[in-house]
């Protein structure tokens, strides 16, 4: 049995995402998947399910959706949005309920997860929309999204979410063409303060800064070769682009550096206007940071607890039946 949610209204930049399609680079398909894999993981952990489950990714775009004849348990993660529902938490949506989410001030990518995941037909083993590769379509008003109403999950759980220091430099490693940039140019890159350009996409995050562009001084006849998310390409006009999950599999622009994987979620969540700086670190340091972060993520479920609700925050308090029955005297739930 499946149920469905109806998307009554959605802006541009809403897609279904999961962990993407690893293993398809040789076929010209980049991995894709959630722009913020950490937020995808946090939502999955809240619902106690596999990170392969597909969720709605909202890139600073509003959405209104409706449950129909079945209730649904959802989780919200990533960039906090304005709504009646608490963020980094699970909620039960009774049947015939409407939920509206509006972009907030922090972050870019927000996720709405559902118990059991959204059930579209997978392509190449994934439900992730990869527009650049022509896989899937953006979500549109009027779309139905199927889910399993029997999937088990617990409502009113909350995750003590990761709150990274947004002002710390993004750590980078040298890449294959770093040496083509003169030392002074690399130093200028490290000293520069960038900010994400609003024209950024799921393919590339464009960085703007006030000074002149960056220029490779070595050999510029670069034969097209493999590219990966996190690579920082310098285009012909000196602009820096950080490749995102839907990037092309190959490219011919010189790469000045690569963002370490554990700092990518923080970078992709930086809104236009907020400062971004970079700092080269050693491979040994990058590896130890990566492993520490992966160990931390494995233990994230310990940060989940029942949400203690203050009656003053319950907008529909009077609709709850507050005085019937006898409790065992234990705390909720």
């Amino acid at each position: 049995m499946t149920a469905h949610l109806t998307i009554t209204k959605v802006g541009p930049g809403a897609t279904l995402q999961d962990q993407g399609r690893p293993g398809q680079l040789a076929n010209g398909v980049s991995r894709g998947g959630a722009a913020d894999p950490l937020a995808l993981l946090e939502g999955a952990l809240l619902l106690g399910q596999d990170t392969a489950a597909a969720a709605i990714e909202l890139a600073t775009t509003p959405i209104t959706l409706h449950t129909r004849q079945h209730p649904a348990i959802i989780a919200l993660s990533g960039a906090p949005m304005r709504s009646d529902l608490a963020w980094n938490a699970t909620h039960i949506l009774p049947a015939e309920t409407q939920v509206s989410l509006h972009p907030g001030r922090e972050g870019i990518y927000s996720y709405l997860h559902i118990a059991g995941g959204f059930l579209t037909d997978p392509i190449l083993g994934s439900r992730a929309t990869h527009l650049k590769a022509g896989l899937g379509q953006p979500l549109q008003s009027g779309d139905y999204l199927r889910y399993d109403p029997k999937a088990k999950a617990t409502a009113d759980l909350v995750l003590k979410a990761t709150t990274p220091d947004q002002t710390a430099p993004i750590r980078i490693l040298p890449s294959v063409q770093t040496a083509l940039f003169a030392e002074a140019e690399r130093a200028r890159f490290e000293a520069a303060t960038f900010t994400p350009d609003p024209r950024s996409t799921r393919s590339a995050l464009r960085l703007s800064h006030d000074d002149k562009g960056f220029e490779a001084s070595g050999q510029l006849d670069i034969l097209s070769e493999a590219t990966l998310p996190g690579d920082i390409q310098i285009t012909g006009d000196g602009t820096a682009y950080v490749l995102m999950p839907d990037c092309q599999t190959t490219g011919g622009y010189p790469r000045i550096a690569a963002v370490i994987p554990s700092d990518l979620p923080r970078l992709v969540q930086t809104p236009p206007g907020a400062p971004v700086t970079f700092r080269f670190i050693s491979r040994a340091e990058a590896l130890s940071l990566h492993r520490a972060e992966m160990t931390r993520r494995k233990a994230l479920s310990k940060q989940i607890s029942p949400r203690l609700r203050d009656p003053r925050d319950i907008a529909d308090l009077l609709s709850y039946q507050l005085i019937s029955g006898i409790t065992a005297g234990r705390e909720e739930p």
Partner: protein
Amino acid sequence: MANLPALPTLTLIRRRPEGSVLARQSRWSFTRGSAILKPMTQATDFPRIAPLGLEGVLVSFADRLDLAANSAAIAFRAALVSDPPDGVTETSVSLASVLVCCDATATDPDDLIEALHRRAQSADWYAKGLPKERKLWYIPAAFDPEVAPQLIEFASLLGISPAELTARITAAPLRVLTIGFAPGQPYLGALPERLNLPRQTDLTPKVPAGALVCAVRQITLFTAPGPTGWRHIGQTAFRNFQPGSATPFPLTAGDEIRWRPVSTSEIKTLAEDPMGGATHEPAL
């Protein structure tokens, strides 16, 4: 969020900005466990092995388009696929290089780099030859201005007739050098120097799926409709990506394609067949 202009994916020759100086001739490598760059003295040190981010390694066999280097890359990747070093999660091949990825939580990427150095030195990959299971494809293509609107322009820029251009392009099989840009999309080459034309300065706003486009001694066959800086000189009904099929990506790097010239009406009747009338046999 608005779309960025598409980043060119295949840049063979990039002009240096006016007045820029070729400051360095030496190549550089990264020392283990540090971000310090050390110059290497050798002028040519291929295959060249360098980290690509934390979890990727790039093994390059040349820095320009070269069939022997492409063969070496394809052979090297085939060897990695049949006998992967510890920790390899994924490999792919570009025009003259191989990407090798690992999971850094399970594998020290520097150990993988060392294993790839040993592997690179274990054979003469340039002389190895292409893998045996390659296919030779015969793909029907119409070279007719009705469906190939830039055929005449391309031929006249080369100073030959459209018939001669078609004859030269269909004369011999072309190798699938790599797959990229879009799912299953092949880059084929190398065409003879006589057919070398740079990209056009303006984009052709939209070519259909199956379009055969040409520039920089290469041909690519479009997976999906889109803009291109290459010239549209032929049209096939072949689909590079066939989702739902047992073999969603019919073409593999190392395969060869020979165009079978057909009429425009035949291409139109083949449109229902995702294979577009293509046949294949083992490549010798």
